[in-house]
């Protein structure tokens, strides 16, 4: 079992979600986050006063999938979230030790 975290551009959320639903990813958790990487921030201008905004709004999506789904999931996110411009985001993959479904008590692959 792997956790896949993807930080993406907010306006790509719908595309990525639909693409993942098509390949059978059954759930995800989405958080509105702020941050910066190579894109850095942007500047805002009010009556000639320029303010630099360091942290840009992004969406972080987390999903947990079985080993055999990892590659396909990652590829799907990359494909759906890519614009080719700086600031498209990053994907992190990590191990998951245990999963429990609260309603039934099912564990691990049963609970994905």
């Amino acid at each position: 079992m792997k956790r896949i975290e993807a930080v993406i551009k907010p306006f790509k959320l719908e595309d990525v979600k639909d693409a993942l639903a098509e390949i059978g990813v059954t759930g995800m958790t989405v958080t509105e986050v702020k941050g910066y990487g190579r894109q850095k921030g942007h500047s805002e201008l009010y009556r000639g006063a320029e303010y630099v905004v360091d942290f840009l709004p992004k969406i972080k999506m987390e999903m947990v999938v079985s080993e055999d789904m990892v590659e396909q999931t990652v590829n799907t996110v990359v494909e759906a979230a890519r614009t080719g411009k700086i600031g498209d985001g990053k994907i992190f993959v990590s191990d998951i030790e245990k999963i429990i479904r609260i309603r039934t008590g099912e564990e691990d692959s049963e609970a994905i």
Partner: protein
Amino acid sequence: MKKWLVALLLALPSLALAEDKLDTGDTAWMMVSTALVLLMTPAGLALFYGGMTRSKNVLNTYAMVLGAFVVAFIAWIAAGYSMAFGDGGSLQSFIGGFGNAFLSGISWTDLSGTYPTYVFVVFQGTFAAITVAIASGSVIERMKFSTWLVYAALWTIVVYAPITHMVWGGDGALLFDAGALDFAGGTVVHMNGGLSGLVLAYLVGKRNGYPKIAMKPMSVMLTALGAALLWFGWYGFNGGSAFGANAIAGLAYLTTTLATAVAAVTWMLIEWFVYKKPTLLGAASGVVAGLVAITPAAGFVDVSGAIIVGAIGSVVAFFGVAVLKKKLGYDDSLDAFGIHFLAGLWGALATGVLAVADNDLLWDGPLKESGDRMGQFMVQVESVAVVGLVTLVGTVVVYYIASALTGGGRVDEETEQIGLDETVHGEKAMNL
């Protein structure tokens, strides 16, 4: 206006002439104009300023504008009107005296020319109130609310009324006799309000953290809506200053719209050129700069005059906001000085240069009497100098009195940090 003011004097009970007759068209127009000018303050200016304020202080800014309006209007009835439009006797050059305090001696049947004097009193009261309110933009987010309200009441009587008297107070008044052309208040309202704002900004001091920390407007959308409401109300401000439903009001409608449109386009183009982006806040600022600039000229210039007044008015205000303010380092938070004073100053001077030589439009003065344009320009210079001086001195005096009466004019640092909405008013702009 001048002709009309002579008529006002004649309309006083002791001098009433048989031919004074109420005109329903004029009366209807002046009543509508009054309501339009009212809209400019507790809706237009309040949203224009509120939108530019940080979200923790937006209600306080709105309350300063609304508060200034209500307090100033009461002060206007109590003594302001009398000081502005009453008979000043031996001091007629400078003030109107207290003879009409609380409107004593004025009856509901009295006419000001062709419409009721009471309508004139309210119409002029809305001018007094917006002038006071303009200055609030310079000292938002840190001035004490109690000090501000006391200041607004005193300033209406001590500064606004004498200036109004000198410019519009009828025969014997200093600048009126000199022949100053100020159609609807470039000197009386905008230079006056804008300069008093700058003086207050110096006296109250900068906001904590200015200009190092980012102070972002809560909503440019509200500011743009405020500018639109100001524009709408300005038809009463300038159109109503023709004091009748007539062709001069029609001219004021045209010049007001044209100069404003030109000013907004100009500001956008400057930003596009200088910063590569035309901001909505810039366009809204251009709208207000144009409205201010055309105010003294509205009933005196033609199409080409209106275009010049609007375009240069925008350039001057942009310079004030984006260059002068940074150089001098004062915290005129919402640019009451940069926009109202500078565009008002430009408009007042430009009126002398661009007023058309048409004696049916001109008021008595060098240009009308002898076609002396240079002389007229010098009168315009005299009027801005006198108004500037009185505003400067009067504002300092009134601020110190208001500050002494309320135990200091500025909120403490913690209040400023938390925000005035929560600490002063106990409410929030939005509960999301």
